[in-house]
């Protein structure tokens, strides 16, 4: 039965040529992740594919992977359903769906991967294909964002590849992730992996591409970008990092852990701070993703610090990823929808659900994720920092309220419109997931019931109440601070543009309208040297004969 795993990557891949041939089938393409749902429950044996590359294995080893597979597939399904109606009249729909399928393949493959190479293949496929999604709209903004995305993605790929090689080397040639988790990692490896995966996960300071790219993509694409794909970075860190016991395995990672915690916390608050300054809804949501990725990085820090049990941490990671993925997906889809139609009251109620879940409102998935996170930090070596997580809840509430308000403002005028049915289904199910999911999923239900004690409720509520007070004050006094200019400053985009200009305009002549000005380049001397060198090789026969004769002399003497 192990071969069933192949269905997951092969179904979308096979759909690509089918779609090229029969473009009309695009209304069913969204069903491509369907095989993942039953397989996540069945969990057949691991599939070993020695013919593919050494050590290639696909399968699910632990509960965390099953959760990730199930909910990633579900998110892709729901977002895909929305995309069907979103791209019904799009002239470039085929292109969109091809990249959609490819990045979905990559995303699912990396979850299934049991060895480094398969993970890398999936990761690369996902990263590079997502470029097609980012630039899909074809506007200047999206092209700019896409360029930055691609530049950083390639840098990330290279670093990640170096990290992968180093890891293979450290593990004596073994490709298996389980083996890597027992192997100590050197500092260069850790740095390569952290930056490589960090560029995908988008925590501070590697987030520069994220607020540009996620809003630029079409609504469904930003939902999966923010909901599913950026998690790949965290999953990668989780899987590649050592976690075994023993002094010599963990001494170095444990010393890195506080730094990660610091970065995670900076990221969490930085995201909120900059997000609050934004004037566009999707950008604010993207910054909220930056902030949330900070919390996920804290989880990795906890893993490395070894003060919490790995199983509990794994479950928490699963909850958090699922919670954030579904909620953020729902919000992005909602924002995309609000740009097209005016939403009705019911829609706003639905939209509020994922928003409050993100802030950690009781009885939602967010409540579980947040309170468990606080508990784990409280139990760990970093207990002193626990208070910051309470403040973080408040900050998140502020940011999502701001985002909701921005979405409200971006609606077109006129009476509320009726939405297409697929959209309603896809988006609605994602919105309802926040309160309903805990009741369907036993593990989550148990954890949710734990938060309902008085102490737990108070822990959840007081930051929210504080937040509510702040919001009320802001609404009441409506201060005009004009901080937007701060938010518009995006060094990443500027540098990316510089890089592009440097790469592209250097060989091409300058504007012909300008008068020629003799410029003495700093490298003119080198250029002359090169010219002289080139001139040396003009008479090919003679030079080659000389080289031959001198070579004979040299090797024979």
């Amino acid at each position: 039965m192990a071969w069933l795993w192949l269905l997951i990557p092969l179904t979308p891949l096979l759909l690509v040529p089918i779609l090229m041939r029969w473009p009309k089938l695009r209304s069913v393409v969204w069903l491509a992740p369907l095989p993942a749902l039953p397989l996540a429950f069945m969990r057949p044996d691991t599939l070993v594919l020695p013919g593919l590359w050494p050590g290639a294995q696909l399968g699910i080893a632990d509960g965390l992977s099953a959760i990730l597979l199930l909910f990633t597939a579900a998110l892709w399904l729901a977002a895909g359903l929305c995309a069907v109606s979103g791209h019904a009249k799009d002239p470039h729909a085929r292109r969109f769906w091809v990249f959609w399928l490819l990045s979905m393949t990559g995303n699912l493959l990396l979850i299934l991967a049991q060895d480094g190479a398969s993970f890398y293949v999936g990761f690369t496929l996902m990263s590079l294909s997502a470029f097609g999604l980012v630039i899909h709209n074809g506007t200047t903004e999206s092209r700019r964002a896409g360029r930055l995305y691609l530049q950083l993605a390639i840098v990330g790929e290279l670093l990640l590849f170096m990290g992968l090689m180093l890891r293979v080397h450290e593990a004596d040639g073994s490709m298996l992730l389980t083996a890597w988790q027992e192997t100590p990692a050197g500092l260069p490896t850790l740095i390569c992996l952290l930056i490589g995966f960090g560029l995908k996960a988008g925590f501070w300071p590697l987030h520069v591409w994220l607020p540009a790219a996620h809003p630029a993509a079409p609504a469904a694409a930003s939902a999966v970008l923010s909901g599913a794909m950026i998690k790949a970075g965290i999953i990668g860190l989780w899987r590649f990092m050592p976690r075994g016991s023993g002094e010599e395995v963990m001494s170095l990672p444990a010393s890195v852990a506080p730094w990660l915690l610091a970065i995670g916390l900076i990221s969490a608050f930085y995201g909120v701070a900059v997000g609050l300054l934004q004037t566009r809804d999707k950008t604010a949501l993207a910054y909220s993703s930056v902030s949330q990725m900070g919390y996920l990085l804290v989880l990795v820090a906890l893993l490395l610090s070894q003060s919490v049990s790995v199983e509990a941490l794994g479950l928490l990671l699963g909850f958090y990823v699922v919670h954030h993925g579904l909620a953020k997906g729902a919000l992005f889809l909602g924002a995309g929808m609000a740009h097209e139609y005016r939403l009705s009251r019911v829609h706003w109620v639905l939209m509020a659900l994922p928003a409050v879940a993100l802030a950690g409102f009781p009885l939602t998935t967010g409540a579980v994720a947040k309170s468990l996170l606080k508990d784990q930090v409280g139990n760990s070596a970093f207990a002193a920092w626990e208070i910051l997580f309470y403040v973080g809840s408040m900050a998140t509430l502020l940011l999502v309220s701001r985002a909701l308000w921005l979405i409200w403002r971006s609606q077109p005028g006129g009476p509320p419109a009726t939405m297409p049915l697929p959209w309603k289904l896809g988006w609605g199910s994602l919105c309802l997931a926040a309160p309903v999911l805990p009741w369907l999923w036993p593990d989550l239900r148990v954890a949710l019931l734990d938060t309902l004690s008085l102490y737990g409720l108070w822990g959840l509520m007081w930051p929210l109440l504080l937040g509510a007070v702040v919001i009320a004050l802001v609404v009441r006094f409506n201060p005009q601070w004009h901080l937007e200019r701060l938010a518009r400053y995006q060094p990443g985009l500027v540098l990316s543009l510089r890089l592009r200009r440097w790469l592209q305009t250097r060989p091409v002549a300058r504007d012909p309208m300008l008068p020629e000005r003799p410029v003495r380049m700093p490298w003119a001397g080198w250029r002359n040297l090169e010219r002289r060198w080139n001139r040396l090789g003009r008479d090919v026969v003679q030079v080659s004969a000389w080289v031959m004769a001198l070579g004979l002399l040299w090797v024979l003497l």
Partner: protein
Amino acid sequence: MSLHEWMLDGTLGLLVLILAVAVLHVRSLYISIVLFIAFGLLLALIWARLGAPDLALAEAAIGAGLTGTLLLAAYGRVSERRRKAEEPLDWHAGPALLLSLIIAVILMRAVWPLPDLDSALVPAVADQMAQSGVGHPVTAVLLSFRAWDTLLELLVLLLAFMAVRQLLPSLPRQPEAWPLLQAWSRLLAPLSVLIGGYLLWRGSADPGGAFQAGALLAAGAILLRLTGLLPALGWHHFWIRALILGGCMVFLAIGVAGYWLGTGFLGYADGWAGPLILLIEVFATLSIATTLTLLVIGETREVRE
């Protein structure tokens, strides 16, 4: 070795060296070409001294004769300006000479121990001569033991011809035929056919064979063509094509037939070796003669049509 043999070898060797140096250093291209032809003839003498009459024949016909004709034909086509241009003796003549000398000395070290060694193939050839179907060892090697080399070599010749066909036509410069030459060639051409046929026939037992015969036939044809006694040999004639390709085709077909019949690729069935080799040689001779003729004097237009 007696003194007069030494004298002979020494003189020949010295002469060859001096000629070679002169060929490279003389100023006029024309004289250089003429000296090179003389160099080739001298080489033929040396081959004869070294007990290689086959090679002496081949060198005289191919090395000196045809190469010389080719060089002169090329000389006829280059422009006046190019002919007059002399090789300047520039700065790197000195270092080049020094370098070549050092390399020659190194190579002498390499050849020093060789005269005392011997080859494993000489007794092997002697052993197998009886089965080869021919009486002359060189022919046996060429058409039996290393027939694949020979087949490929026919292909090389064909390919050279094909390659020349690709070139765009160059300006033809055909001088008027010289009356005396015309008269002589009427006499020489049949003679060359006769001698060629004889060489081919003798090739199975004595020095001589397809290449020498082919070269001689070609020489006759070239003479006739130059004097205008032979019509143009265009590629568009089916028979010309068949002649040129016949050698390779017959050779290949016999080789494959041998594999088919179980005597190995390019092997001959018992008792059939002699006739088959003769057959191959006849076709190869015709093929070589036609190809060389067209290569040497065929105007590009004739070759291309």
